[in-house]
């Protein structure tokens, strides 16, 4: 386990940087990119719960993102439900679907689980895309309600929305930090490292994995709802497999299983993808090569490099007379 003091200093420092960031680029476009970065980081943190903490590669992640997004969007446009009611509804539905789907998918293991969940993600995407009477298919949903004012605080400006997304990201990281540093986190570690031993000491491995899958789906749903509400428009591509693999890339670059790694990974990869947007679909060539190199040379991601660098400094200090 990483020492708690250092792993706590990291998110606090990041939060301070993030708080002043909008002041340096008050341009609307960049603020929207920043907001989406925070939202994708929440989703990446969610994927990290099932992948990094429970050790199960779920490829249904964008499906749950889509469920959260479409729940908010459709409740808002068809029933006039405001953002602040639609968002928890989306999270709840994603979590409930995660619990149900997890109960079935988690009976399979390893590669079979990954393939199973990829099929589930594809099915969710196809339902969203093809159920035109409900979701308007490719046309998408227009006029998704944005976050309304809470008392005197309004979220009409792009800067305010970026702070809102940042607030949810900070909450997400705090929640995951508390989970990791608790018996629940220790149970997940046990199941991830050795399921046979975990069962032999009385841990219900299935229940632990299902819990992680549910939390992961809930966070994907939260990110989806924020995504739909912050843009005001929602299309079916928000739930496709490419979205899952993008999120997976964020987590892998940042470091699977680390607390803040997925956030750093999101900002690096998503930021790069914005810079490389001029290359259009050819940017995937760049990311494909980058992913291969990443897996070959730093499989533990940025967080792993950071950890070993820190251990290296520590080692040198000890060697000094």
């Amino acid at each position: 386990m990483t020492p708690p003091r250092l792993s706590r200093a990291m998110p606090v420092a990041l939060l301070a940087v993030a708080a002043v960031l909008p002041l340096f680029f008050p341009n609307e476009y960049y603020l929207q990119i920043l907001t989406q970065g925070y939202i994708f980081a929440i989703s990446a943190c969610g994927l990290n719960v099932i992948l990094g903490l429970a050790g199960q590669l779920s490829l249904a992640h964008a499906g749950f993102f889509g469920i959260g997004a479409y729940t908010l969007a459709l409740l808002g446009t068809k029933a006039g439900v405001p953002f602040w009611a639609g968002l928890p509804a989306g999270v709840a539905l994603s979590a409930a679907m995660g619990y149900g789907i997890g109960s079935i998918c988690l009976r399979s293991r390893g590669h079979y689980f990954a393939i199973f969940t990829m099929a589930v993600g594809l099915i969710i995407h196809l339902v969203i895309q093809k159920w035109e009477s409900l979701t308007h298919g490719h046309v998408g949903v227009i006029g998704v309600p944005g976050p309304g004012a809470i008392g005197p605080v309004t979220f009409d400006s792009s800067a305010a929305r970026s702070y809102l997304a940042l607030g949810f990201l900070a909450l997400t990281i705090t929640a995951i930090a508390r989970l990791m540093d608790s018996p629940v986190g220790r149970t997940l570690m046990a199941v991830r490292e050795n399921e046979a031993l975990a069962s032999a000491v009385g841990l219900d491995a299935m229940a632990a994995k299902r819990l992680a899958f549910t939390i992961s789906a809930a966070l994907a749903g939260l990110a989806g709802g924020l995504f739909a509400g912050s843009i005001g428009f929602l299309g079916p591509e928000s739930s496709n497999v490419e979205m899952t693999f993008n999120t997976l890339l964020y987590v892998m670059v940042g470091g699977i299983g680390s607390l803040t790694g997925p956030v750093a990974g999101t900002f690096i990869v998503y930021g790069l993808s914005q810079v490389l947007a001029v290359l259009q679909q050819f940017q995937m060539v760049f990311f494909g090569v980058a992913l291969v190199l990443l897996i070959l040379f730093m499989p533990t991601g940025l967080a792993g490099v950071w950890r070993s660098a820190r251990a290296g400094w520590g080692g040198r200090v000890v060697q000094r007379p």
Partner: protein
Amino acid sequence: MTLLEVRGLSKSFGGLRAVDDVHFAVETGSIVGIIGPNGAGKTTCFNLVSRALPVTSGRILFDGQDVTALQAHQVARRGLARTFQSTTLFTEASVLDNVMVGYRQRTSAGVWDALLRSRRLAREEQDAQEAGRGILATVGLADLADRTAGSLTQEQQKRLAIAVALVAGPRLLLLDEPSAGINAEQTRDLIALIESIAAGGVTVLLIEHQMQVVMHLCQRIMVLDYGRKIAEGTPDEIRRDPAVLEAYLGHT
């Protein structure tokens, strides 16, 4: 009083009958050994009793209750603990975290307690830490609590595996070849440790290849060969049993 009773236990892997109609009973407070040549079905027998494997037929009664249909974690929570033949630990985690995982079955704080940092969570964490440090002291690993389990020596890892199994206070402990891979002096320490565990009120069932360990520790021994029980009795009876001699030495 009988703590564990196995009736007509069988396990088939395809055409191979790994465990074949085995009956035995373990009395509360005793140390019982299972011996037999390689491939006799000893570990399979353990895996069936600890519910890591589904049984083909037969019944397992633990503390008078039928546990044949239970899952591994359920039977563990009733007080049946085990170790594995190849020393099995959470190698990346600290020594203390390993035993705290072992204690988890005794606590009930869930995800909301963790998120809200409830008082129950704090209390249970303290209990788990105390129990963990206590059991580490018992097995002689108190000074190594903060090391990662994977960095311990083979012999220390074996003691840690026993601590992980013991920390929640089981009534029956299954030890699968506890003396494998350690030297003679360490084996003497291990025998003393197992004796102190039994003296503490834990019933012990162990698989063992080293005869001096079995003969020294066990009140009763049963012998498996090709999945069948071929003998059962006191160490003296087993030493003289012609079926046992034949199984170990072959026809002469």
